[in-house]
């Protein structure tokens, strides 16, 4: 497929998603204009109705976008090697546990402590990703099955660790992680009127850069892509197919693990026991899918889905059910899955255009 359709299909899918969301609102006698106002406010902080400006919304919008960009990178990276990583959620949770551990148990000067926390989270996520990678390479066990099951293991391991290892008093939160280990920034919070915006965007942007560099520029990325496109062909060419599968899952896991740290020591400042998975992993699948598994694509689709998440409370306050955001998100994914159909429509429309041009000239 050419680059034009690579860009065109997601844009059409996004457009159709919003049209569908608006149509549902109209059908239930609510104003889609309110929805678009809420979305605009969540991105720009500007409330057009009341003509007020609150930068806190911008901060929260970025906060929502950061972890799903990382899980998007995680899913996308595995996908470039032909693997379907449903386990970003679990890898994220392992990263979160490691971040809490490194935050509470290590003592180090400010910047160094945070870096150690992030590295610990990446390592933990990487190990959690290596397990399905190894099973796939060694025994040909399908990674979808293993990663889904490991998501549950990670969730319950997290909840157990919060209480038993980190000695949570209220059985929900761990003791506070010392400020040296946090990504928190008073400056950023002040700039955005007390939002939870933090330095997390630096590791996120670096990750996007690293992703792009590995996939597009390195020999390692070359062989990963070869394996992803054609395993037999890669084997014939002498590439180590099994080793690539494991390495790819380790790196995918590391991206997700980093997301866990960004949430735990950035958005929050303590580890949390969770009643259920928060869905960052599944959001990551959507982000990767819409972003075409490309670094820059993941960045923009991460912003899009971050906006949809951040707009939900604002929509609710204006009488728009927040579920409409989930409907839009789901329908965008659905339309992306109908890629062939959209391309077919494009083709059908094209010759007609050519004919009319001829008539005009």
């Amino acid at each position, binding site marked *: 497929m050419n680059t034009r359709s690579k860009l065109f299909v997601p844009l059409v899918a996004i457009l159709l998603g919003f049209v569908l969301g608006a149509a549902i609102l109209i059908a239930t006698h609510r104003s889609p204009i309110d929805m678009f106002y809420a979305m605009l406010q969540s991105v720009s902080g500007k409330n057009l109705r009341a003509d007020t400006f609150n930068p806190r919304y911008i901060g929260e919008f970025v906060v929502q976008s950061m972890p799903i960009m990382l899980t998007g990178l995680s899913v996308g990276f595995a996908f470039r090697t032909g693997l379907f990583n449903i386990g970003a959620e679990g890898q994220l949770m392992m990263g979160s546990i490691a971040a809490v551990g490194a935050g509470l148990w290590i003592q180090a000067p400010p910047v160094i402590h945070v870096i150690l926390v992030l590295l610990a989270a990446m390592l933990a996520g990487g190990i959690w990703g290596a397990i399905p990678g190894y099973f796939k390479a060694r025994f040909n066990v399908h990674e979808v099955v293993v990663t889904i099951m490991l998501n549950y293991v990670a969730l319950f391991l997290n909840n157990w660790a919060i209480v038993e290892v980190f000695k949570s008093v209220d059985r929900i939160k761990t003791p506070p992680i010392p400020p040296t280990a946090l990504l928190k920034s008073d400056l950023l919070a002040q700039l955005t009127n007390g939002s939870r915006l933090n330095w997390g965007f630096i590791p996120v942007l670096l990750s996007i850069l690293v992703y792009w560099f590995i996939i597009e*520029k*390195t*020999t*390692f990325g*070359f*062989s990963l*892509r*070869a394996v992803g*496109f*054609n395993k*037999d*062909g*890669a*084997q*014939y*060419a*002498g*590439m*180590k197919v099994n080793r690539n599968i494991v390495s790819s899952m380790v790196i995918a896991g590391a991206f997700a693990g980093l997301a866990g740290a960004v949430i735990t020591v950035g958005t929050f400042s303590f580890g949390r026991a969770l009643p259920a998975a928060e869905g960052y992993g599944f959001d990551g699948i959507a982000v990767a899918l819409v972003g075409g598994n490309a670094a820059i694509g993941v960045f923009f689709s991460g912003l899009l889905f971050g906006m949809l998440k951040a707009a939900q409370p604002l929509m609710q306050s204006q009488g728009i059910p927040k579920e409409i955001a989930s409907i839009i998100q789901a329908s965008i994914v659905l339309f992306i899955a109908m890629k062939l159909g959209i391309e077919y429509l494009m083709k059908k429309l094209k010759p007609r255009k050519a004919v009319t041009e001829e008539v005009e000239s």
Partner: protein
Amino acid sequence: MAYVIEMLDITKTFPGIKANDKVTLQVEQGSIHALLGENGAGKSTLMSILFGLYSPDSGSIKVRGKDVRITNPNIANALGIGMVHQHFKLVHNFTVTENIILGLEPKSGLVIDRKKAAARVREISELYGLKVDPEAKIEDISVGMQQRVEILKMLYRDAEILIFDEPTAVLTPQEIHELMGIMRRLVKEGKTILLITHKLKEIKEAADYCTVLRRGRLIGTVPVAETTEQQMAEMMVGREVSFHVEKAPANPGPTLLTIEHINVRNAKGLLGVKDLSLEVRAGEILGICGIDGNGQTELIRAITGLATVESGKILNKGKDITSLPIKERTGLGLGHIPEDRHKHGLILDFRLDENFVVHSFDHAPFSHAGILDFKAIRSNADRLIAEFDVRCGQGGATPVRSMSGGNQQKAIVAREIDQSPDVLIVAQPTRGLDVGAIEYIHRRLVAERDKGKGILLISLELDEILDVSDRIAVIYGGEIVGMVNAAETNENELGLMMAGSVRKVS
């Protein structure tokens, strides 16, 4: 003269290419009419137009003298036009009868009347001498048989005009022979056959008329009986073609590749290669011929490292490579033009320049310290494209998937020869290619031989083996049952050995 099909002045343009440029095709009732042309000459486009898959930009179609507009395959079917596709469209766990009646099931009440259907299938099968068992499951019958099921499907739907799209590409020599018999029988019973192919021998054997296309244009229609293969080849390619591979006698040097008593298991876990020994010397082409499935694939896989060897030894220039990984074998000077170019030879979704470096991307000059050097990769591609005359729309940036089969194969040949290996394992190098490309690849192989390389050529095409090889080994049941000099043997002798009835190891 009654034409059953007339396609007049058909023009069809795709973005950037005129696939058919005022092509006229007139087919007589009750004849076998061949459509000949190189890959990309516009044969398939023309047939797709006749079958209703594309609509022409201009031109008209007449069936039995009447103007028709065929806008979809159902209309073609209703006009009695049926197509036997190159890739069969059969349900594998259905029986022959079930496949044939699919979509047209005869019913008694609510249930399918299988007995009636099977009886009808048997009747048609006997009428045309197809010898198909209506109760057999598709997955249990041979490829040749499956093709007959496709033919039966057309006949069951009362097709009068049958289009065969490169029907022999997947068949063994025996099956090809039988198919030719079936086609003659069909014509005798009043059917008309349109045969798409680029194999001149088959046209000469079966067809009455031959229409030649080149680059989308009609070159001419000739009566086959009065035209030589040489003349048809020249019409197709547009210049003189030599069928005979020009080569001096071999001047073999020291032994390069030694295979000692190897046993290799096949996909089913049985021994596909049994106690096989071979030697390939510098400056010679050793051909291996045999009927498909007699251990060729296992042998190739064992030498190149795609499969493990049960027992025995493989040596390259005296160094034991039996259990080395593929990468190291390549590094020791072993090249491989694989049997299946789509599965193994190419990464179809990669660009051409990327495909040229699948072996060598991880070292200089194509990468430094793990970082790819795209400038070097691109200039390498430009060099190979020029040297090996690979035709591609956008140079090194061309997606390989969009290239024609012949040029894909040229790309593989370019890559493997360019690595300058001492031993080159060449499997089915010209399958599905047109005369021009075949000629080119054969010349390159002989040129490599003359440079002192050792070449092991594995092919199912007997002509290719006889033309190109210096020595010929015959493989049967996983064993070498014959070893002869190419100059001192003929098709008959090889055929007998391939069938396992004669052994001759000199």
